[in-house]
């Protein structure tokens, strides 16, 4: 996985300028290359595996798997909320981890949500964004897909702090990582099908969706309105 990142950075250093000039995507030529690589990998490996996973396992079981990995992520989601100054949210994330790991039997039952501790979506890329770091150039990372210099750095830190890294046995660790990736891809099957149908140019559509989505996440779903042509600024909500 880290080797993939290193490869991406090496490719970045090799850098190739693009013609169709989106200022956010100066490495479009290289990015499209990695994008095609990811698409091929997805078509022949990730998607078939995810489909099989979804067909073999009942929704109920997939939910338990999802909960298990979701619970493992909560401590560092809390760290990120703390780093962003959202102390109540951070404390709530840690409470989630405490309740779900114990009462929720190692996280397979999300009892904390029922108790009113909402699940949050945070990562180091969002924390950097909250601190005022801009996206930087758009990057398509091998395996990970749409990212940017800022979020790619965030992803590297996410991986470094991944609790699965604590698992000693290589075999167990890789298995867990594999199951988690499969689970995540399975959850996205419908969305990726939709993307395929909706987009004229999937690469461009995905890139725009990435920027919009990340911007929304950094502001926890309440981003300040962007200047949309002639629409005057209006308060959100």
């Amino acid at each position, binding site marked *: 996985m880290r080797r993939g990142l290193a490869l991406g950075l090496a490719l970045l250093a090799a850098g190739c300028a693009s013609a169709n000039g989106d200022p956010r995507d100066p490495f479009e030529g290289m990015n499209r290359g990695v994008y095609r690589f990811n698409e091929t990998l997805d078509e022949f490996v990730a998607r078939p595996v995810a489909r099989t996973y979804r067909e073999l396992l009942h929704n109920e079981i997939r939910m338990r798997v999802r909960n298990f990995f979701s619970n493992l992520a909560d401590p560092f989601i809390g760290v990120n909320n703390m780093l962003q100054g959202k102390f109540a949210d951070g404390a709530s994330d840690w409470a989630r981890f405490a309740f779900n790991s114990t009462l929720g039997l190692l996280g397979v039952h999300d009892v904390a949500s029922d108790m009113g501790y909402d699940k949050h979506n945070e990562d180091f890329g969002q924390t950097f964004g909250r601190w005022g770091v801009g996206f930087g150039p758009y990057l398509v990372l091998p395996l990970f897909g749409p990212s940017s210099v800022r979020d790619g750095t965030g992803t590297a830190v996410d991986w470094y702090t991944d609790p699965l890294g604590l698992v000693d046995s290589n075999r167990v660790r890789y298995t867990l990582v594999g199951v988690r990736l499969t689970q995540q891809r399975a959850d996205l099957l419908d969305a990726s099908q939709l993307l395929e149908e909706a987009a004229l140019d999937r690469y461009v559509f995905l890139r725009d969706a990435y920027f919009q989505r990340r911007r929304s996440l950094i502001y926890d779903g309440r981003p300040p309105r962007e200047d949309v*042509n002639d629409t005057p600024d209006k308060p959100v909500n």
Partner: protein
Amino acid sequence: MKNAIAVLASLLLACSALAQDTATPDALVKNVTLEVVEIISKDKEIKAGSRSKLIQLIEEKVLPHFNFASMAALAMGQNWNKANSEQKKAVTEEFKTLLVRTYASALSAYSEQKFEFRPLRAKPTDTDVTVQVRVLQPGTQPVPIDYSMEKTAAGWKVYDVMVGGVSLVVNYRTEFSNSVRNTGIDGLIRELQGKNKSLEAGGAKK
């Protein structure tokens, strides 16, 4: 006397028609969503995967509440003003077809998720509001869906949908402007037509 009753009756009719048109936007979203979901979960043909029946349902129940000309204009940005009225009509029509098909795919993935309808925070005089809905799925963060709606002479109309913070209209903007820059507005229309044709062909297989 008879006249008076007739006047009263027509006044009542007018009032009820008016009440329909000015129904609050959040109530409109809620009613339409729940009605469509109810039909989907009961209709045998749709459950068996009939795409044409699903599209028919969307055209009947959902389309009247969208302002596709607004959506096409927003997606085209500055190029909209460079288009003549026929081109505007064609873009709107093709964009509508594409969005309906996409919407049908989204709905066919629907499986018993629950909705949470957020109370509308707007003044009664507002003519541009955002109606917030959250799709609840056990085990994951709720997915927020925001409908941007404007008040028109024909009632409240949706002009943009944001899913998880991603605006549908904004997301088409780069694609549209690339297409117009490379092949002109007619090129964009051809591209949309081609896309819709290939979806139709693909949909027939399913």
